[in-house]
């Protein structure tokens, strides 16, 4: 079936088209302005859609997950499970352990839930145990060479393939290993395996500036032994002074007092290693105001200039980047520069000052 002559039909149609008025007959300036904004629409729409998708994915990723008995409020990409074990992939990972407490583990740390607590297979783990009412069994943290019975406290564990160390920040813990039992109070630290520490000639495995405790075998077995008090000493003193030894306990010594190791020394003395650990801990928990308080207290102590500079830098860093408190930060950087004119962190301090837009005259 023929539609007719194409040329004639098209010419007729074109005459009709010629009668159509130009709908967009506007001022040429508004035309130019309108057209200039048009090309942004599609990319803007695509960008908006991409952002929404990204936010949705991120929101889904951030939903608290329960894995091998741990409750984790962090992106799924920051950890992985291997059997009963959880391994940390992010720089730090906060994990709730129901009925036990809260841990902050650093990258590479591996933790397994056990009955009544956790087993630190490896890595650096900060532990914050929930308060346990009297009469309830202590929470347990198993490490390579023993078990820490937690009596309501906060502490840090570093576990390597050959041994480890616990630094106690708050409260009281008891370390049980074979026939020994040691109680630590806040400020003390303990390194395992214990045999290596008993020998005063053996060099300390790591962080030798902390208060380390030398403990001898005690009598007793499964139940907590209650030996005499032991005073923690500066690690540097271990060679000069023999470690306090506690007699091995026997099975019948259940009712005796545990060996309690308390921090001593001048009340104003500062354990920098501990401050750094505490600072790291507070930063991991995003308790920046507490971290600032800790640093300000520490900076008033008599410490080597290099240490003071480092701590001063940390303080300014938190005020600049975490607390976003430009006035305080600028004031701090001003004082920092005055105090450490040839400092080791000049580049970083300059960058922070530039970022804050500090005036050079800020008091």
């Amino acid at each position, binding site marked *: 079936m023929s*539609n007719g002559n194409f040329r004639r039909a098209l*010419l007729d*149609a074109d005459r009709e088209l010629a009668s159509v008025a130009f709908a967009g007959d506007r001022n040429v*300036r508004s035309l*130019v302005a309108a*057209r200039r904004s048009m090309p942004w629409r599609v990319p803007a*729409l695509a960008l908006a859609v991409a952002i929404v998708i990204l936010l949705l994915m991120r929101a889904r990723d951030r939903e608290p997950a329960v894995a091998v008995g741990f409750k984790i409020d962090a992106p799924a990409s920051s950890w992985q499970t291997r059997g009963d074990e959880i391994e940390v992939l992010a720089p730090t990972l906060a994990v709730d352990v129901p009925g036990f407490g809260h841990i902050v583990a650093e990258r590479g740390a591996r933790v397994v839930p056990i009955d009544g607590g956790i087993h630190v297979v490896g890595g650096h783990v900060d532990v914050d145990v929930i308060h346990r009412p009297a009469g309830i069994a202590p929470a347990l943290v198993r490490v390579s060479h023993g078990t820490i019975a937690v009596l309501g406290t906060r502490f840090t564990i570093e576990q390597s393939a050959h041994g480890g160390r616990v630094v106690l920040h708050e409260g009281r813990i008891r370390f049980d290993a074979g026939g020994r039992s040691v109680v630590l109070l806040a400020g003390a630290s303990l390194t395992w395996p214990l045999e290596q520490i008993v020998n005063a000639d053996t060099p300390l495995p790591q962080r030798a500036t902390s208060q380390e405790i030398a403990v001898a075998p005690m009598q007793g077995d499964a139940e907590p032994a209650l030996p005499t008090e032991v005073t923690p000493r500066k690690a540097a003193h271990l060679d000069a002074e023999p470690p306090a030894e506690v007699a091995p306990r026997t099975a019948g010594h259940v009712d005796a007092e545990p060996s309690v190791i308390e921090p001593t020394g001048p009340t104003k003395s500062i354990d920098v290693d501990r401050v750094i650990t505490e600072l790291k801990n507070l930063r991991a928990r995003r308790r920046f105001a507490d971290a600032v308080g800790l640093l300000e207290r520490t900076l008033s102590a008599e410490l080597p200039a290099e240490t003071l500079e480092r701590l001063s830098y940390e303080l300014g860093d938190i005020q600049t980047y975490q607390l976003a408190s430009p006035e305080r930060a600028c004031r701090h950087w001003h004082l920092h520069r005055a105090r450490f004119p040839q400092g080791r962190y000049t580049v970083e301090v300059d960058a922070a000052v530039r970022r804050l837009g500090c005036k050079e005259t800020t008091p």
Partner: protein
Amino acid sequence: MTAALHMSRTDSATADRPTLEECYATHRAFVFHRCLRYAAGDVAFADEVTQEVFLKLWEHLPNLTDTHDLGAWLNRVTANLAISRLRRERSLLGKLHALWSTADRADTDTAQRVIERKQVANQVLDALRTLPPRERVIICMKVLDGASQREIARTLDVSEGYVSKLSQRALQHLAAAGWEVDDVER
């Protein structure tokens, strides 16, 4: 800012160079009509391409050496912009964009409404719409402007052989659709 920019361009123009407003007043009907042809009667399309053509003119006017032959320049730009836009509208992104800009088109009329009683005109515009963008423009130039193959090739910046090939293909397509195309030069 746009106005300021516009003024600076106008100021920089030589004394005998027309301003954008003058070009717009003189040529907008011509450009719009060309756009309507290539769009097979889609007024919204023609409106937007017309604006695009004058935006291009705004960008190039200070550098145009021969403003006396502005009609030919506009014809070339109109054809090429129409082809680009027709191609884009056929793509998935173009269909999404059409959905996005529906609101803009709501206040514009369509040619179909204006010529709804012209049955044959509608049919021929429908047939034109079935052709690919470049073939559509070539057929319009050939039939409505009486342009030679050489002129079309120069306007679209393609070879004469390619124009001939596309023209043949378009005419075959129209003939297959039931149109008499014997009097259209091949």
